[in-house]
């Protein structure tokens, strides 16, 4: 595939012609539709950290912990996963302020001797801390102090920092936020500058109580010492950090971090009955007009999750497609630029290309290459970011059916992905990815259009003006 191959000249005439005027040899892509070599597939399926069975704990305060022991590890990695799912009446800006207040305080307390980073996952934030293994007590103690209710002045400062750092929303962000809102209900993922600036101290304090709650959180520790030797530190953390929300705890990490059952999404298709209107925002920050379309895909089993991921990986070779999996549901988004003069053609073409992809049967070679790239990049990224097992383990929670399956979820996901053949994926894409004849559930929005461009777009599809605020 990467190797140069000799081309045979066919016939004297051809040779004579090429001697006069040399033409570039036409390249014909080879198509292999065979099973991958067993040893290659097996080696790929085994790409997961060699972690032994993690020690799972449920602390008195309701915090769920997973202790990953790597004998001889010199680096400690601690990752706190806090579900931050916006609900009706709770603004996304409040979540951003809480996350910033937490990051800032943890950095202030332990940043001199540890690396602190805030990572955004599907419907959650992940506070990642790395430090020398000897700093376990220091890190857990600092984290515990930071998790106590924040003084309102600290939340005020965090709000100011968030507002100061907000750039005007780009058309792509506006269109994605509107599409997600249509798909997931009141999940207002867009942080609005004015609304965030107007958040009162009481709002922020309530948001802190709601989100920074051990009964909803999951703590992952990757350490060179066994779980027993970390118990005293975890006990201190549990004694100090108590839930103030007064709600029932969810007993499993998968239950806490997977998306809750979805409200029935839009029962619509794109450019096909029952058809949906195209939401448009004629304002938007800098950048060309953008269209974002998407849908929720049901992924109740590990096999479904592997199919969804493989479909997205193959689709993203042609279109700008992303997928966020969190247990039983995954959200697929496809982004496309709209030209000022031919937006109506762009819209038609996008739907055609997605439908064409969904109806196609892809050869085994293409599926194997897509799986190889995805599975390889997953472990290479983990290696480049410090061989932090907690990052992959958090990913594994999204893929597992229950807590007992988390440790083996990456390997199961890899095995399932490599076992999918062309027919199986085609059946899946026809059902979930075809926007015209597949399962209903599609929504789309465009932002950054001029009025004239919107008028032209209106010839191809029924439009519905939208705003981020409503």
């Amino acid at each position, binding site marked *: 595939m*990467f*190797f*140069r191959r000799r081309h045979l000249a066919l016939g004297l005439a051809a040779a004579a012609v090429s001697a006069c005027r040399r033409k570039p040899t036409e390249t014909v892509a080879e198509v292999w539709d065979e099973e991958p070599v067993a040893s290659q597939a097996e*080696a790929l399926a085994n790409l997961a950290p060699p972690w032994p069975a993690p020690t799972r704990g449920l602390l008195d305060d309701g915090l769920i912990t997973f202790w990953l022991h790597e004998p001889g*590890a010199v680096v400690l990695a601690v990752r706190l996963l806090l579900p931050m799912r916006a609900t009706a009446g709770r603004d996304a800006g409040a979540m951003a302020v809480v996350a910033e207040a937490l990051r800032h305080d943890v950095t202030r307390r332990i940043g001199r001797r540890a690396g602190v980073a805030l990572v955004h996952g599907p419907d959650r934030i992940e506070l990642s801390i790395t430090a*020398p293994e000897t700093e376990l007590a220091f890190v857990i103690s600092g984290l515990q102090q930071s998790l106590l209710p924040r003084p309102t002045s600290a939340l005020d400062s965090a709000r100011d920092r968030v507002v100061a750092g907000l750039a005007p929303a780009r058309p792509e962000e506006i269109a994605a936020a509107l599409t997600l809102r249509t798909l997931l209900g009141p999940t207002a993922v867009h942080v609005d500058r004015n609304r965030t600036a107007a958040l009162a101290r009481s709002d922020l304090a309530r948001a802190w109580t709601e989100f920074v709650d051990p009964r909803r959180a999951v703590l992952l520790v990757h350490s060179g010492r066994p779980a027993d030797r970390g118990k005293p530190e975890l006990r201190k953390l549990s004694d100090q950090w108590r839930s103030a929300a007064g709600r029932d705890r969810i007993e499993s990490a998968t239950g806490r971090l997977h998306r809750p059952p979805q409200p029935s999404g839009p029962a619509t298709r794109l450019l096909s009955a029952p058809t949906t209107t195209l939401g448009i925002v004629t304002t938007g920050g800098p950048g060309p007009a953008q269209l974002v379309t998407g849908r929720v895909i049901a992924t109740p089993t590990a096999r479904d999750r592997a199919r969804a991921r493989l479909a997205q990986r193959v689709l993203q070779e042609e279109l700008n497609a992303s997928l966020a999996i969190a247990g039983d549901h995954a959200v697929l988004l496809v982004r496309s630029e709209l030209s000022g003069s031919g937006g109506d053609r762009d819209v038609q073409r996008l739907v055609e290309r997605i439908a064409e992809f969904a109806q196609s049967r892809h050869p085994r070679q293409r599926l194997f*290459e897509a799986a190889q*790239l995805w599975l390889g990049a997953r472990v*290479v990224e983990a290696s480049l970011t410090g061989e932090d097992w907690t990052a992959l383990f958090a990913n594994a929670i999204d893929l597992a059916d229950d807590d007992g399956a988390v440790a083996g979820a990456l390997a199961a996901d890899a095995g399932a992905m490599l076992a999918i053949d062309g027919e199986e994926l085609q059946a899946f894409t026809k059902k979930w990815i075809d926007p015209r004849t597949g399962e209903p559930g599609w929504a789309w929005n465009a932002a950054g259009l001029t009025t004239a461009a919107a008028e032209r777009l209106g010839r191809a599809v029924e439009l519905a003006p939208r705003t981020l605020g409503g």
Partner: protein
Amino acid sequence: MRTGAVQALQGNREFAPHGIARLVHDGGGVTQLAIGAAQIRYESIVPASLLDDVLWAEAQRLRAPTVSEATWKDALRMARRDRGRAPALPREAAAALHMSPGLGHDGHAVGDALGKLGVRAVATHLAERFTYDRATLIVVAPDPPDMVLPRVVARFGELPAAERKARDRSGSARADAAPRELATAGGTGQLAWAIAGGVAAKLWAEAVCATINRIKHAADEPPRARLRCSIDDDVRRGTMILKPAGADDPLALVRGRLARLLASDRAMFDAERRRIADELALRVRTPLGMARWLARNQPAGRGRNAAAMRPQSELMGTAGLRSDLGSIPPELASLLEVGAALRVLGP
């Protein structure tokens, strides 16, 4: 050499131009080219499942490289885009310090002469310089060495037998009673030490520099005296630079502070060298970090000595840092000796 390294990315009988990069990227890996003053590294980080493919690719990389007018122009274009970083010392001073005239030139400049080189000259250059008997292969893998080594041997075993030509390209330090002096544009009175090749010298330089930057002002020093230390890192041509300021006799200031490392500020120096050794353990935790650190070691000798096994402590270089310093190791002694430095003055 730099342009030659880029040209070597243009493929050979087995790989199309940038074919090895495609092989690595298609497997989810990352690959890059690192060019130093006296070392070129082709680095790839790949999932373990791709190890055999990458070993095979490395066993092919330097064989019969493709050289044509088009690929040479492409290599020159790529080389022009890489601007590198600003040198910490004036080039003339760096060349004098390391006794390496090549450092006096901007290695990033792609002049007309290179563009006029013929295909045959480029091919000859590559055939002379980019050969396996000068190269070192470093593999950091999750499997134990006795499982990986046979896989390496199987891929490279068919290469014709040759005497190893790799040699120690580290600069050598020399100590006199007083520092040598050089007047050149960009000189501000800074003192520069060549860091000897190998891992231990690099660690000692870090420990010395970190301590110098923490040492407090002494009562017998001029009130406005300041001394800052920095390291211009390079695998083979590393430099430690001290910048004195606010003192009538800068050499006395430097001598005094260096002497304090083994006297009144010994506890601080001991703490810093322990910290540096601990930090190294974190740095080499990832395969890429470990491979880069191992690449700092001297080549494993010439001829029959090439395959000699070396203890891990020697390859890591931390044994001295954790010792009680009963005797001063030569790598440290030369850094504490002002006579080993080059003083760079203004014109």
